[in-house]
């Protein structure tokens, strides 16, 4: 999987799920210990090609997420590297106890791939939204949580997860034809946030699909003479505290997740510990079940567009 401007464009057009499928094909070619597991959502996971071309490395356990995690844990226990994918709420909430016991307590080397998290399942609604998955996963000791901001970074996440020994939860947000944050070579290290824009007035920490919107919001703010430092917090656990500083007059978190238990909660608890003195704005989904709608409509309705982010910041003012 060569990282190039051309590929970044192609992957972005394909969207996160198809990119995941492509990354897995590549991974399995390089490492025969890697297996793709699914609870009957192989095609929805972008694995259609893999299911025929690498069918010996595809395992469908049926519509049974608890068993999916247990079986994946058994494979991991014997030295294989299972990637288990399903829609975010099913592979976090439905099987939470299996994750707690196998990935947490026994620290088994299972990679969970949470598809369509946040509100990217659009019109399918609350049953399929990943509104609280980070809250649940973050509470389980020892599970790394990755939240890629675009498809190119997703490819690096998949590779990094395979090379890392230990449980990983990969949270996908965004949809086909999602915007690109990264065009060419860029660094990716688990637990080390990427600074994408320099600015001394405010610090915007964004994750997943919201990184691109945060960058666009920073451009709007710049026109109003507010310079934002924008950080892509692609790893939610362990969190990179080194980006936090008292030099900023304002700190903003932006995420496609409930206001409870996600990036906002994680960062807020850190800034309390460091005694941050500036203003704080948490931009997130409400602590509520939502109505259903297209992705674009939902992002607008819940204030997760670049314009809405900039407006919130300007309303509070530095």
């Amino acid at each position, binding site marked *: 999987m060569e990282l190039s401007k051309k590929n970044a464009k192609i992957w972005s057009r394909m969207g996160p799920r198809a990119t995941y499928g492509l990354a897995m094909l590549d991974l399995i070619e390089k490492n025969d210990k890697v297996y793709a597991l699914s609870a009957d959502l192989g095609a929805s996971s972008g694995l259609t090609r893999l299911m025929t071309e690498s069918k010996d490395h595809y395992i469908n*356990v049926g519509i*049974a997420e*608890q068993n999916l995690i247990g079986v994946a844990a058994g494979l991991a*226990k*014997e*030295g294989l590297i299972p990637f288990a994918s399903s829609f975010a709420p099913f592979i976090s909430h439905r099987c939470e106890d299996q994750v707690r*016991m196998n990935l947490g307590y026994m620290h088994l080397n299972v990679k969970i791939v949470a598809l369509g998290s946040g509100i990217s399942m659009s019109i399918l609604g609350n049953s399929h939204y990943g509104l609280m998955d980070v809250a649940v996963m973050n509470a389980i000791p020892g599970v790394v949580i990755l939240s890629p901001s675009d498809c190119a970074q997703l490819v690096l996440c998949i590779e990094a997860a395979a090379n890392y020994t230990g449980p990983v939860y990969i949270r996908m947000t965004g949809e086909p034809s999602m915007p690109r944050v990264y065009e060419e070579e860029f660094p990716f290290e688990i637990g080390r946030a990427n600074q994408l824009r320099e600015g001394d007035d405010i610090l915007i920490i964004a994750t997943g699909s919201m990184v691109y919107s945060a960058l666009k919001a920073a451009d709007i703010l710049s026109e109003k003479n507010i310079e934002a430092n924008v950080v892509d917090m692609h790893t939610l656990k362990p969190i990179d505290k080194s980006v936090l500083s008292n030099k900023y007059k304002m700190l903003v978190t932006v995420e496609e997740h409930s206001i409870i238990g996600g990036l906002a909660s994680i960062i807020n608890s850190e800034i309390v510990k460091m005694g941050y003195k500036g203003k704080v704005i948490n931009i997130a989904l409400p602590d509520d079940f939502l109505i259903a709608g297209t992705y674009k409509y939902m992002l607008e309705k819940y204030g997760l567009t670049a314009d809405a982010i900039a407006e919130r910041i300007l309303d509070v003012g530095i």
Partner: protein
Amino acid sequence: MNMSVEAKNVRKRILDMAYYSGVSTHLGGALSIVDILTVLYRDVLNYDFSNPTWEKRDRFILSKGHCVMSLFAIFVENGLISEDEIQSYMKDGSLFSSHPIMNLAHGIECSSGSLGQGISLALGIAKAAKLKKEDFKVYTLVGNGECNEGSVWEAFMLAGQWKLDNFTIIIDNNGLQSDGDSANIIDLSNLTTKLSGFGFEIIEVDGHNEDELRKAYNVDFNGKSKIIIANTIKGKGISFMENNNEWHHNRLIKEKYDCALSEL
């Protein structure tokens, strides 16, 4: 039926552990699985007690983790856990606690205690053996009460589908569970009938008859996974504990301890 010396010694060891812990333990279930485990570890598993991390060993996954006292007792009897080490059983900070904590050096393959998860894990291990073309076999033990958990049936369905001929599920069918008689809660007295359509080789045995158990373990897989339904008596071997659910989780006081020991 005559209880073997080994099974008797394991039961004595369980009574010692329960009594000296000074706290409530899961005596009933631990006693009901003694013969199942005694035969498994003595006559069936390809297992070296002096080398518990040996890669080619057969694997045993205890799904009904609350009965781990029985497993500890077998490991002490075979030198895998020392007499000194087991003194810490149920003491603050001990590795040997009410529910198993994964510890391969002491023979404990996995952490468990949250019911309904061991079959899935064991099935994954058995699948891995096939994928890696390794010859070891995988055994897991679940309780009849544990079979109330939906995840157990998820695993039954997949194991029936996969038909791995290196995989054996043993069901400790003692007819009781935490709140009492299973027949009044979720009646699984006809487990063989219930499971007959799942695609397993099913053998139903007296779970305290070592000959029957040995034969069941040795029955050919016939190209399928195997389920051994072991009909047992909770509290087996101690008259006042047998089929008495007060001993599901209870403290063994001196008088009862002496009385129980005198029966073995």
